[in-house]
């Protein structure tokens, strides 16, 4: 049994958390290789990728696949490298400096495979996973429809039995990788109500890919509708069981959300690189703008927010690695493992995508008017980042979910009801929990308290082992989290709350660290 069960953070302080400092030297070498690949092969093509130059992206995915990047945590038995979620996620983070590339890679190495990895039978896994893990084929995940987005299980695509085959009819929308994918995981309903998953090849008669969406950002990634008109799928390609497709779809998304969190802080690395470079070149009033206090504040905030998000992400990866390590590898075991940390995965998604939004917004501000032009790199990063808070479950549905799920786990005895009270945030969370009303605004604020509790608990434990700049980032992060928590507490309870005295903000120390490293501390 794992040391920290799902939602265990609420009532219990861990002795240690998984974090990137704990990687072995050969794991760090893998991350370094990913970083060099991104800088050498992806970033120089960013503008050409954005124009969707024919063949460029699939070629890049093929190259990434040759190096092992499309199957880091795919089981070895199916052509992957069988590495930990923590390492696979870290590698993905460093492959995510360009968001168009990362969403393409993230989907084909993540949610396009996960349904099969967790729920596919032996012959399905043997047939499909090796080509996806090697980058030889690109995968896609087809859940959303024109009338069912956040309400994912309200989908209308029909699956009708025809002899040994199934005929799929419907329209799938917002399908990442649609243009390039050869393997689609498709969700449809049998008898109008039983959600069922299928793996569908591109050359299936009746499957067509419509024109590309004209998007605000991620222009280099492919997003299009997949139309199914009595697409004939052999019976062997039904994944898991009729009526159990929601487990396939939603558990892939649990882990997908965690991966997306890492894919959201990857571009922050790029934004900080550009922002710190510009601030140390640009002079106003005869002074480099990196010397002005209000600019330094932005870098210090970025260090703290990044540290908070990064800590939550790798802590959650560590928990997943433990629970999957302890699982017997059966479909039931996989399902239980993928569900266990659904709250933590959602918390990472919200924490990371909102940190991404704030930091990239502030780095654009560092560029002043130049940031507002497409001549400079921040405009694209800003546009690309916007979708992070929308896809893989909007931040709103995640906020509606987190507090609700904790309450259910407590009610069913799967989590303890008393707060760990190991921080000011935790105390507020403990006091607020019994007072959450029905209004989504209160539920969302309660979720904020829980996410902040999860984050500051992680940064406290992690930074105590690291010291130095990490301890400073923790101090600043806690100050910020306390303020956010007080606001959320007031929303839940309608009562005022007094903030504790702030710890040191370390504005100049953190800013100097970020400016020197040209990235997060």
């Amino acid at each position, binding site marked *: 049994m794992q040391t920290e069960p799902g939602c265990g953070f609420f009532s219990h302080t861990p002795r240690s958390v998984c974090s990137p400092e704990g990687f072995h*030297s*050969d794991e760090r*070498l*893998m991350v370094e*290789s990913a970083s*060099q*690949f991104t800088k*050498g*092969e992806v970033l120089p093509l960013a503008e050409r990728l954005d124009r969707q130059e024919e063949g460029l992206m699939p070629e890049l995915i093929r190259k990434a696949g*040759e*190096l*092992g*990047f499309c199957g*880091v945590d795919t089981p070895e038995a199916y052509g992957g*490298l069988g*590495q930990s979620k923590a390492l696979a996620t870290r*590698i993905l983070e460093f492959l995510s400096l360009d968001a168009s590339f990362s969403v393409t890679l993230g989907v084909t190495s993540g949610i396009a495979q996960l349904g099969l990895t967790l729920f596919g039978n032996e012959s399905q896994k043997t047939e499909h996973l090796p080509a996806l893990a090697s980058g030889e084929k690109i995968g896609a995940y087809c859940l959303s429809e024109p009338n069912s987005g956040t309400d994912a299980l309200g989908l209308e695509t029909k699956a009708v039995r025809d002899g040994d085959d199934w005929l799929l009819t419907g329209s799938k929308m917002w399908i990442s990788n649609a243009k390039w994918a050869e393997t689609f995981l498709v969700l449809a309903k049998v008898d109008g109500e039983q959600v069922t998953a299928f793996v569908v090849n591109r050359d299936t008669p009746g499957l067509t890919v419509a024109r590309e969406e004209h998007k605000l950002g991620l222009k280099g990634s492919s997003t299009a509708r997949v139309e199914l008109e009595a697409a004939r799928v052999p019976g062997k390609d039904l994944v898991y069981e009729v009526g159990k497709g929601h487990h396939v779809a939603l558990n892939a998304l649990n882990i997908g959300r965690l991966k997306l969190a890492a894919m959201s802080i990857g571009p922050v690395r790029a934004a900080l690189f550009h922002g710190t470079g510009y601030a140390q070149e640009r002079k106003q009033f005869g002074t480099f703008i990196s010397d002005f206090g209000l600019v330094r504040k932005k870098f210090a905030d970025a260090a703290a927010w990044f540290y908070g998000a990064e800590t939550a992400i790798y802590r959650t990866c560590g928990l997943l690695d433990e629970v999957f390590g302890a699982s017997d590898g059966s479909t039931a075991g996989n399902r239980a493992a993928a569900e266990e940390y659904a709250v933590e995965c959602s918390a990472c998604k919200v924490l990371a995508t909102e940190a991404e939004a704030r930091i990239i917004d502030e780095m654009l501000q560092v560029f002043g008017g130049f940031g507002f032009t497409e001549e400079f790199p921040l405009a694209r990063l800003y546009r690309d980042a916007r979708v992070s808070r929308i896809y893989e479950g909007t931040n709103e549905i995640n906020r509606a979910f987190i507090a609700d799920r904790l309450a259910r786990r407590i009610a069913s005895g799967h989590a303890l009801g008393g707060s760990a009270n190991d921080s000011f945030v935790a105390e507020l969370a403990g006091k607020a929990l019994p007072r959450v009303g029905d209004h989504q605004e209160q539920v969302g604020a309660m979720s904020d308290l829980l996410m902040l509790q999860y984050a500051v608990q992680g940064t406290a434990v992690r930074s105590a082992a690291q010291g130095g700049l990490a301890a400073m980032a923790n101090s600043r992060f806690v100050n910020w989290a306390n303020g956010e928590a007080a606001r959320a507490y007031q929303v839940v309870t309608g009562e005022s709350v007094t903030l504790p005295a702030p710890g040191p903000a370390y504005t100049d120390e953190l800013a100097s660290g970020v400016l*020197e490293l040209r990235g997060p501390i």
Partner: protein
Amino acid sequence: MKIVVPIKRVVDPYAKVKPLADGTGLDVAGVKFEINPFDEIAMEEAVRIKERDPSTYTVAVSIGGPECEEQLRKALAIGADEAVLIETTDGLDASVIAAELVAFVQEVAPDIVLMGKQSTDDDSNQVGQMMAAMLGWPQATFACKLTPGVGEVTVDRETDSGEESLRMKTPCVVTTDLRMNQPRYIALPGIIKARSKPLAKRGRGTSASPRVRLTHLAALPPRPPGRKVASVDELLTELKSRGLV
């Protein structure tokens, strides 16, 4: 064909480093270490030779503390068949390193010693040449192309007067220049495979002692600030007054 590739662990050439306050060395706390980039080029070339001729066997060797294992594992991940660490905490200079490598090479008996022309930390550019002299082997330094033949190699090298092509008998020493190749991105399966490749540790093979001693290390004094002059005439007057023109 057998190729020995000496690998040096150096401070990341892009890292900012400061001398220790007492001038006895560099402050390397928290600094990243890499394979000397010229040695990485040599390792890459050895692996490319092996890819063309699978009978080739490559051995990476390093001298230093246990931390050098990290760079040897990287060499194995690039594709070395075997790695050896000559483990020591003794002070080393070029002559000691050359003597140790010579002792090692005499035992392993490679056809080629392929190594960086110099290391990016102290830029001494001596070890390859010293080894060739001690071994009595032919050498080609600053190589930009290496073509192995039967019992001989052809080496192209860039010089101030143009490109030279040398042919020499093996065994020999070849030191690599920057243009020989572009090292590959290291594939993740290669890193995993490297975990199970042999990495042997042994003590020193000679009692050679350094001929060079570091007496003091200091940062360059900061450059005094310049000032702007209004005209060419003012510049000339200023230069003349200082006796510079």
